[in-house]
């Protein structure tokens, strides 16, 4: 799978970090999301799906192969 993060849309709510801490982090000063791995392993699929579902800005996309 491939994860896409639309940084300009990010409202820094941190919901992706709560859902998938192995895939997302936040910048310390303003909380904008950081994509830690663009191609996470399949074992993280559920976490990433949850991150997509809870992102209030609809800024995360999951491209499944």
């Amino acid at each position: 799978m491939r994860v896409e993060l639309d940084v300009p849309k990010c409202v820094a709510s941190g919901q992706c970090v709560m859902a998938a801490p192995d895939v997302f982090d936040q910048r310390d000063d303003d909380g904008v999301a950081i994509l830690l791995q663009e191609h996470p392993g399949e074992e993280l699929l559920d976490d990433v799906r949850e991150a997509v579902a809870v992102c209030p800005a609809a800024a995360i996309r999951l491209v499944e192969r």
Partner: protein
Amino acid sequence: MPEAQSCPVTGAAEPLPEYPLPRAAECPLAPAPAAQQLRAEKPITKVRIWNGGTPWLVTRHADQRALLPDPRVSDDDLDPGFPYVNAHRAEIAPMTPRLITNTDAPEHTRLRRTVNGPFVVKRIAKMRAPIQKIVDDLIDQMLAGPKPADLLKAFALPVPSLVIAQLLGVPYEDHDFFQRSSSLVLDGSAAPEEARRVSGELAAYLDNLLRRKTADPDEDVLSEMAGRVQAGEMAHAEAVSMGVAMLIAGHETTATMISLGTLALFQHPDQLALLRETDDPKLIANAVDEVLRYLSIVQTGVRRVAKDDIEIGDVVIRKGDGIIFDLHAANWDPEVFPEAERLDLTRPARTHQAFGYGPHQCLGQNLARLELQVVYGTLYRRVPTLRPAAAIEDLEFDHTGTTYGVHSLPVTW
């Protein structure tokens, strides 16, 4: 009265429902029955509000998720079509500076990023131990005091006020003043003049504290804002307003989730038993989201205005139309939450919209979740005999505030 007026006229429009819609007295924790009916029958429909305006009411979970992040759906409360909550809000809108609560992207994005630092997940997580201490101490005090006790005054209001004091950097010796003043401002039974006086004292206190933090900074939010003021990123008055806003936004809402949440658990003894018997952080975290979903305490709806025509389902929302999103109705949408009327702490609840949805979703939600996780994970385990000391029929609910709530919650143990 002329007979013609009382006779139904063929083809006449049905009167629009008046929003907010009333709850049923016999189900004080459920959404308004009419909101649930509209969700099933007319999920996007016009309603009438206090000023005669006729905004759209959106009640389905999926429609709210589609519309709230849509850039055409605006938070601009200077737009003539904006569906104000009440006359007071309409009156103050032109005098209110542009904040995260009344702007759209890109201005909103910029403003939100300047105030978001303290709410970054990793920084909030560091507050778990201090919050645990606050909760433990308040339970000790309540248990040492008389019973029955009012859970709201003895516990639910002090928890968030002490947490916010800690977050802002209020020195320990002032906690008592801060806690008493902020609780009094929110206490519905306090005289309005007294509430106004104390609220002025609190703002003056924060103003003065911000000056002290400028001279002598520490590791807290006011010091951080003092730094931004000195760097020219923020005005002193803005920083004070932000401090007051954090107190207002985070105090009553969290207190209500503690008092009303406990009431909801009293109504579902099997679910209360789950919390009493667990120390599984995953179950506790899910329980918090489920209680947030179930209660959805924001009762005035999320208010927006359309900046362009929007086609959704079989309706067209016209540019300039007001839009209201009823969060409670969406959080009881059976398409997303089957048997939504059942409080089920083990159901997947994470996609609820109790904190709203879209770019304006609650800034303090991560802190609120942490506070509630500590409270729900501690209170019922430490006080396993905690039970209501009044019948639910005898409780007084607040139907008029932005958030629903109960004026007091007598408990014993």
